């Protein structure tokens, strides 16, 4: 089975799992309640907001990983991979921001709050955007690849800071999955979350492979054109 087929399979599976998680969210997972017993319907956003956010961290790791590999080998394919990983990160980061803002409004009554998690995640968004701004302003292909790799590595340092900030600093952002008192989920909730998370990661992988496939065809096209032109 070749990579394209695996990617298609992952896309299908990811689609099925996320759709299943979507229905589980509304028809199976326990309704979360406020301390006073009222139903917290806004909590439903959690089942997709968190998986997308975690996926964005994970995919962004590959930006740095392939950045390092590129700098060590100067092989253009690694730069292409880093670029695609960052592109998928951008998609996930934007979805995280959008759902996050909506949840903030539901839970805290405001659209935005400058609290540590939100702030660092906002910075992460800016870094991912800056990565593409940087790429677009370098003319020479190889130089572009080197600069983008270097910046990707630097930018990734911010990702763990954003991830762990709720554990380090005083933050009102909930830490659901870290254990500790009052956190934790009931079984149907946890299963729904896990299904959504796995589905989202599969989608991320599928997106990455599909884009890679596209870039590889582009490169083949370019190579063909060079041979025809020469």
């Amino acid at each position, binding site marked *: 089975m070749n990579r394209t087929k695996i990617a298609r399979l992952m*896309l299908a599976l990811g689609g099925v799992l*996320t759709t299943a998680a*979507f229905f589980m969210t509304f028809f199976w997972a326990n309704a979360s309640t406020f301390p006073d017993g*009222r*139903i*917290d*319907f*806004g909590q*439903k*956003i959690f089942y*997709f*907001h968190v998986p*997308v956010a975690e996926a964005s961290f994970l995919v962004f790791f590959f930006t740095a990983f392939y950045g390092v590999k590129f700098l060590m080998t100067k092989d253009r394919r690694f730069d292409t991979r880093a670029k695609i990983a960052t592109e998928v990160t951008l*998609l996930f980061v*934007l*979805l995280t921001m*959008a*759902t996050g803002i*909506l*949840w903030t*409004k*539901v839970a805290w009554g405001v659209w935005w709050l400058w609290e540590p998690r939100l702030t660092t995640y906002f910075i992460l968004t800016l870094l991912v955007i800056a990565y593409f701004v940087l790429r677009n302003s370098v003319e020479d292909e190889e130089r572009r690849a080197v600069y983008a790799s270097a910046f990707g590595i630097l930018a990734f340092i911010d990702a763990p800071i954003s991830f762990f900030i709720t554990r380090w600093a005083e933050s009102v952002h909930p830490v659901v999955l870290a254990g500790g008192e009052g956190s934790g989920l009931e079984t149907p909730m946890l299963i729904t979350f896990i299904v959504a998370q796995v589905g989202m990661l599969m*989608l991320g992988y599928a*997106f990455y492979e*599909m*884009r890679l*496939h*596209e870039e590889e*065809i*582009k490169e*083949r*096209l370019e190579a*063909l*054109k060079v*041979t*025809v032109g020469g």
Partner: protein
Amino acid sequence: MQDIYSQVMPQAPYVVVAYGLIWVGLIGYVALVFSRLKKIEKEISVVESAVKRREKSE
């Protein structure tokens, strides 16, 4: 039942919009990539057949 609706209703729009955005984002991205893939696959088949024709004529 009435009670549950009154609790859920004010929060519902935000949840609906959130899931709407997620689905539009994910499906839109897939559609975008697929349409680009189609276009580029067409382009490469054109170039490839041109290369073959040239090789034959040489």
